[in-house]
């Protein structure tokens, strides 16, 4: 049952062309990014340029991915409630949890699809331009980036229980910026400000990526530990936010204009 709902949600998102637009934007930006790096390759060598391209490309992909996650999360079930299609699903012998998780899995699958296609796009560029093979630990970086998107999705999903999609997105962005300020404060030398910064980071689900791909070049097991910690941190937040949203959805009345 959950898989049927998830597949339907994924088709809905695919047919909304939203993912396609994000991918076109990603491809366009990456082309712009690669041009100066291609020129740089002649000066510094393909390997370094490849690493820089990878880092830069994923920076943009991640940014666009966060925008996609915000939009998809804010409308995950809200849009279906608005257009009334959720009632047709809810009329089936399904629990609210099945309905909710079906929608969430469909949305996560859409984000995964975006990420995988973005990865493939980079793979093609890399193969033809830089001939750069990233280290195996790069996969950890990819997982961390993807989980970071899911955290954004989970935050806006949580807010969408209380607010309309626009407000949920705005609040999520505000949270993101406050988290960024927390990150800046945490870097200060003053103990008090540092503590405040760390506190702000904790409550705003701070999502900075632990290591950049270039830092991972030749990384040993010890230096990868913070990535594992970040992955764990992201997973804890995802589970907490998605399960609280599920509980709220379970108690929610599916009120339409006609109710």
């Amino acid at each position, binding site marked *: 049952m959950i898989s049927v*709902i998830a*597949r339907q949600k994924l088709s809905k998102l695919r047919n909304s062309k939203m993912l396609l637009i994000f991918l076109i934007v990603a491809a366009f930006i990456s082309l712009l990014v690669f041009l100066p790096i291609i020129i740089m390759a002649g000066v510094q060598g393909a390997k370094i340029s490849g690493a820089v391209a990878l880092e830069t490309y994923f920076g943009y992909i991640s940014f666009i991915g966060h925008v996609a996650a915000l939009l998809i999360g804010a409308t995950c079930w809200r849009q279906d409630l608005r257009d*009334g299609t959720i009632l047709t699903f809810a009329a089936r012998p399904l629990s609210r949890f099945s309905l909710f998780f079906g929608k969430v899995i469909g949305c996560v699958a859409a984000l995964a699809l975006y990420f995988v296609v973005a990865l493939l796009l980079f793979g093609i560029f890399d193969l033809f331009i830089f001939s750069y093979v990233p280290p195996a630990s790069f996969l950890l970086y990819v997982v961390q980036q993807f989980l970071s998107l899911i955290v954004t999705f989970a935050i806006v999903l949580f807010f969408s229980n209380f607010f309309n999609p626009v407000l949920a997105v705005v609040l999520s962005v505000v949270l993101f910026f406050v988290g960024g300020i927390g990150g800046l404060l945490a870097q200060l030398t003053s103990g008090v400000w540092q503590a405040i910064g760390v506190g702000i980071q904790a409550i705003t689900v701070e999502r900075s990526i632990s290591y950049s791909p270039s830092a991972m070049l030749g990384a040993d097991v010890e230096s990868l530990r913070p990535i594992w910690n970040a992955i764990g941190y992201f997973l804890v937040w995802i589970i907490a936010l998605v399960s609280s949203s599920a509980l709220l959805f379970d108690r929610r*009345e599916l009120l*339409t204009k006609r109710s």
Partner: protein
Amino acid sequence: MSVAAIRFDSLRKVYERRRSAREALKGISFEVPAGEIFGFLGPNGAGKTTAMHIVMDFIYSTSGSCEIFGISSTDPSARARVGFLPEIFSFDGFMRGEHFLRTFGKLASRTKEQIEAAIPELLEFLDMPEAQRQRIKSYSKGMTQKIGLAQALIGDPDLLILDEPTSGMDPIAKAKIKNLLKKLRGEGKTIFLSTHILSDIEDIADRVAIINKGEVLAVDSLGKLLHVEHKAYRVQFDSSDNQLVAELQSASAFKRIAEGKYEITCDTRTAKDQLLERLLKSDADITLVRPAGASLQHRFLQLLQHEELSDD
């Protein structure tokens, strides 16, 4: 004794707003017997959709309970035998008819073989075989409502809950839906349908409940609900016989409806019989003989205390 298809027991619903509360249902209690077409009538805003949405567990009751075939409506398994059509059915336009029905067939726990056999059969039954390959966004309003009905039927439910099923349909589509509902009743299915268009159910419902402002005003079989002490009868006829018209004009309740069309209200059965006998002897064409005040519309308006609006 068979279990009722739906049972409402002192069902109450209050919509709480920040600064106000609105009581949409004021403790309604009635049963929908299995195997019948049950009309749920009421003006707009009477509480019909609220009651239906509680049955479907879309919204929660403030107090009281509701059961589907003896199972609490809050239990998802209660909906295993139910097909539901919302008032204004809409679905993702990118889906083709068959894809859409396949999705909902799976959600109704039907096997792949059952679904593949049911899709063309249902679309044929609903007189829209061409809809199978078309995208929902290209459907007309009537077709959209019918594909909604098809998704309600794909699980072969014992109970159909239809919220204003003929909403926005043209008279031909309405007539087809009525025939379809009769056919489904013939197959032993229970149909619980809400409407504010009385003519939609007058000739098909076995039983009706009339609701207004959250209160059920009457629940009975259509026959009993319309059974009143018929002291008066309305007789309508067409005639070009001036002598006959002049003779009957002396009757107290003589009314000229249009050119050559007349109506007389007889106070007693004997007066009605005498009038009919007189009309049969003349060249008059009798077009209507009906107990005055025996239409569903009259009874509905009477219960809603708007009797003055009735034509009867």
